[in-house]
């Protein structure tokens, strides 16, 4: 009952529709020292899973006004998740590799 929707040619982000549930789940990878999508638009209440697909540790954090979080660092194959509860723009980064950056637009 779950559909994985590819958001770009390289199969970088998967939208996981949890049946008829209202909140959706998304997956963003960290691969070759980059987030697999530069931008992602979600709805308030949606959850994004950040999955490390590289052979070394990555981090995920945001110091945005809208939402501040720090998921620590974790190895290949593991993921951590963030639920976005307010509308606005969130800049997401990896503290280990400053060139890794993406934006999540949270819509009402």
């Amino acid at each position, binding site marked *: 009952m*779950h559909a*994985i929707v590819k958001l770009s040619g390289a*199969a970088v982000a*998967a939208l*996981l529709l*949890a*049946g008829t*549930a209202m909140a959706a*789940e998304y*997956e963003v*990878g960290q691969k*070759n*020292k980059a987030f697999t999508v530069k931008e992602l638009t979600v709805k308030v209440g949606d*959850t994004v*899973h950040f*999955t490390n*697909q590289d*052979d*070394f*540790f990555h*981090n995920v*954090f945001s*110091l945005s006004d809208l939402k501040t979080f*720090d998921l*620590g*660092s974790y*190895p290949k*194959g593991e*993921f951590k998740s963030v639920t976005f509860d307010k509308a606005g723009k969130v800049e997401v980064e990896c*503290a*280990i*590799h*400053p*060139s890794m950056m993406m934006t999540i637009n949270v819509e009402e």
Partner: protein
Amino acid sequence: MRNRTGAARIHALAGVMVLVAAAGVARGETGLVFEAGHPSLQHWLLPERPPYPEDNEPTPERVALGKMLFFDPRLSSDGNMSCASCHNPMFGWSDGLPTARGHKSMVLGRASPTVINTAYNTIQMWDGRKKDLEDQAIGPMEASVEMNTDFDRLFRFLNNNQGYSEAFARAYPGEGINKRTLAKAIASYERTIISNDSPFDRWIRGDASAMTEQQVRGFRIFVDPDKGNCAICHSAPNFTDNGFHNLGLASDGGESADPGRYAIKPVKILKGAFKTPTLRDVALTAPYFHDGSARTLMEVVEHYVKGGVVRERVSPNIRPLNLTAREKQDLVAFMEALTTRHEPVTLPELPLR
């Protein structure tokens, strides 16, 4: 609802696994063939020319002006300290000191990094507080503990000096003599301080005799995830990931320790984390680490073999290594293969008036 979420997660991971299997090998450091010139190794070659900003193409006039400025001690308040005092070509464009000596010989907190190949960095300084060479160049002049430059006096001097005013006019016609053109000229010169023709580079290009067998073994250990695992951070082609890691140096830990990158980005894992330096020409730039605590490349290797000293907040990618005495020597021999035989540096004649 909770169950559904769980199912979705499992599904997500299954999808990822497939992706990794399909595309994982190509870019990772596995699947390499350790033969001189092999196609699987070509990503270790640097681009012929380093990148530069659109408004600052390194023309010969700009490079020549930047070279004068880089070596000119009159840029400092006491007229006795140039960029080359701490980034000295005789010491691999560093200073041979554990940590730098600044204004009035003050002992500074961090080691002078080499400027070799900084042109390829995507971020500058041990803590990454500067974004590019233009952004960096004025910093040491502004710092009271370094060159302590009096800019009013400096710009009066440069404007009244015929040699410099002509050189600026040739290099940056119509742009004037100011912090911006000063920085652009110095950055242009730094973009010529390049190491990209070492025995390692020649071996990668196909010259099988360029590296010894020991050095080739060292290269394997360097990239092997089960051996040195060095290349996950000192990655191709400039031997840096432009990233920040805590290596568990003895100077870390406790309240007074250098916060490193954490002072710029207050994220927990950045406490005591510093930028991965390039290893090109590294045999020329002892002592090593941001605190100058390792005197030789072998001491550096011993540090990694131990997996760090202060393990409190060490990077999870640093763990004790299982290397024999011979393998450690192989690693050192490999790092010694990263030295380019440079053309002798000719010093500029500085315009007296």
